[in-house]
């Protein structure tokens, strides 16, 4: 069995095909042995990084734990709504994470970083601003399509309290943007024309993918288990952000509330303006990132203008 002979720790990174995971791997791979996995494809990586295409909720996943002595897991891989149907997504995101955490227990993994999202708080008109980590997770109240995000979180939290030896750190970032990022918000702002709800321009927070990668690496190396929001101390209204990214606004009727959902469904905007996220373009979900910033001494190094200028320039080149 090709057990690692070096004294370096071995870190398993899921979602390795994504731009955040690749940045995290790039930051870690000279100090750690990396094992990269993704459900989408076998990732081309630097020499010395074993890479697998595997579904975390299937049996073959355990072989990776058998073949490598995994010391830590950075769980970034997530199936987005536009990538599959609800059933498959639930399997991948919730059952896959459950399987992953079980394997971590079985093989004595000493540290787990879970990449969650601020979506779990839910966009509601009654939200106060600067939500703390202990605010209720109301996303499943808004839509069934976010149930998997909330359940993944609850699962990770149960393991966090029940098995402290796993040293679980849950990160809830705000919108992560930047080169190569394929999440809903990034796909949206890459488009020349972007839907906006008439009369609504909620405040939002944005984080550059490089800063998020730094945050994950810090959380991994300092190993302070817990739940943390990750967000900068800066805010901008959605419609201003849209314009700053060089997009033209497409006004969408917002009343009655069911209308924008119907429009999104009818025009198949699932990848960038999905019906289940409409509320996030209507009401603000502003999180307080102070706990993370103070615990890990982290500050984002790129400001909003740096983030938006990437989307502006990409449009000029197209």
């Amino acid at each position, binding site marked *: 069995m090709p057990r690692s002979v070096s004294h370096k720790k071995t870190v398993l990174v899921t979602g390795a095909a994504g731009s955040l995971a690749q940045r995290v791997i790039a930051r870690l791979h000279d100090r750690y042995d990396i094992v990269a996995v993704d459900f989408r494809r076998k990732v081309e990586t630097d020499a010395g990084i074993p890479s697998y295409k595997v579904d975390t909720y299937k049996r073959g996943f355990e072989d990776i734990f058998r073949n490598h002595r995994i010391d830590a897991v950075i769980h970034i891989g997530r199936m987005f709504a536009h990538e599959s149907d609800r059933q498959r997504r639930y399997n991948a995101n919730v059952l896959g994470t459950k399987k992953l955490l079980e394997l971590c227990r079985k093989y004595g993994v000493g540290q787990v970083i879970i990449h969650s999202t601020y979506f779990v708080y839910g966009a509601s008109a009654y939200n106060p601003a600067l939500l703390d980590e202990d605010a209720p997770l109301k996303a499943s109240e808004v839509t069934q399509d976010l149930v998997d995000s909330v359940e993944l979180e609850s699962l990770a939290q149960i393991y966090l309290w029940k098995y402290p030896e796993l040293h679980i750190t849950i990160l809830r970032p705000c919108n992560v943007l930047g080169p190569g990022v394929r999440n809903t918000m990034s796909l949206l702002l890459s488009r020349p024309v972007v839907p906006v709800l008439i009369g609504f321009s909620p*405040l939002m927070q944005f984080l550059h993918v490089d800063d998020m990668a730094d945050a994950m690496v810090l959380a991994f190396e300092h190993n302070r288990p817990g739940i943390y929001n990750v967000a900068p101390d800066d805010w901008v209204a959605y419609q201003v952000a849209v314009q700053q990214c060089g997009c033209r606004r497409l006004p969408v009727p917002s009343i009655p509330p069911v209308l924008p959902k119907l429009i999104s469904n009818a025009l198949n905007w699932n990848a960038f303006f999905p019906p289940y996220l409409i509320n996030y373009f209507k009401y603000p979900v502003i999180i307080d990132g102070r706990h993370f910033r103070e615990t890990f001494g982290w500050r984002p190094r790129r400001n909003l203008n740096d983030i938006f200028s990437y989307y502006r320039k990409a449009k000029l080149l197209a």
Partner: protein
Amino acid sequence: MSTVDIFKQLASVNPGEALYRRLVTPEIEALFARIPKPVGSFGYDPWGYNENAAKLAVGIFRWLYEHYFRVTAHGLEHVPPQGRVLIVPNHSGQLPLDGVLIGYALATNPHGPRAARAMIERFFPTVPWLGNWLNAVGAVIGDPLNCSKMLEQEEAIIVFPEGVRGSGKLYKQRYQLQRFGNGFMHLALQHRAPIVPVGVVGCEETMPSFANIAPLARLLGLPYVPLGPLLPLPARVYLYFGEPMVFEGSAKSEEEVNARVEQVKERIRELIARGLKERQQIF
């Protein structure tokens, strides 16, 4: 000048920009430069306050303040120029005009301008444009978490502890304080925030309500619908800011909190009584 130049000049005139310059005068710009209010790189704060929108609002409300309601403000020197503070007035006049006028008075306070925050009803964010605009000029939904975090960030917050009980009361009940909620006192104790009591005189006469059309209110999902003038009448408004009240220690029971709330109510009653005595004319 050639015709082309004239056209070029005409094309460069931006009516929006010109109107903005007329409303947001250099004095207003100078006021906002003095306001101790941190904002992010696009001029926003976490609650949606936006500097440019706030300037514009002050520009617009100046006419209302100076020419329509001809407001006289007394005791503005009692409002601390910086640091956390709760501004606690009586509420009246169906529409929250008293909040607007107090906000204007604080933003233009010669003793130190403040961008005050107001706590508003929870249905406002669901109203297109209005919700965003209210946030942009400093209003936020009255959630204790909002209030608490704002006090930690040294904001000045206007709280109407009477809520809709005060603003929606009938003309025959004018200048009678309704039941106060205790939330503001808990927050003041928790965050050691001074309370500036305010007596508002005149707003009761801007929109005398003779009855509440309750069935219509229920139908519209509103707290009340007054039977009275459709637009606010131009009554003169007098604002009396009292000396800051500081409450030490923590309350051991709700009864103790009630007793302190009574002290604040008593101060507001005195300020209102003074205002009514000094008032020469209603309109």
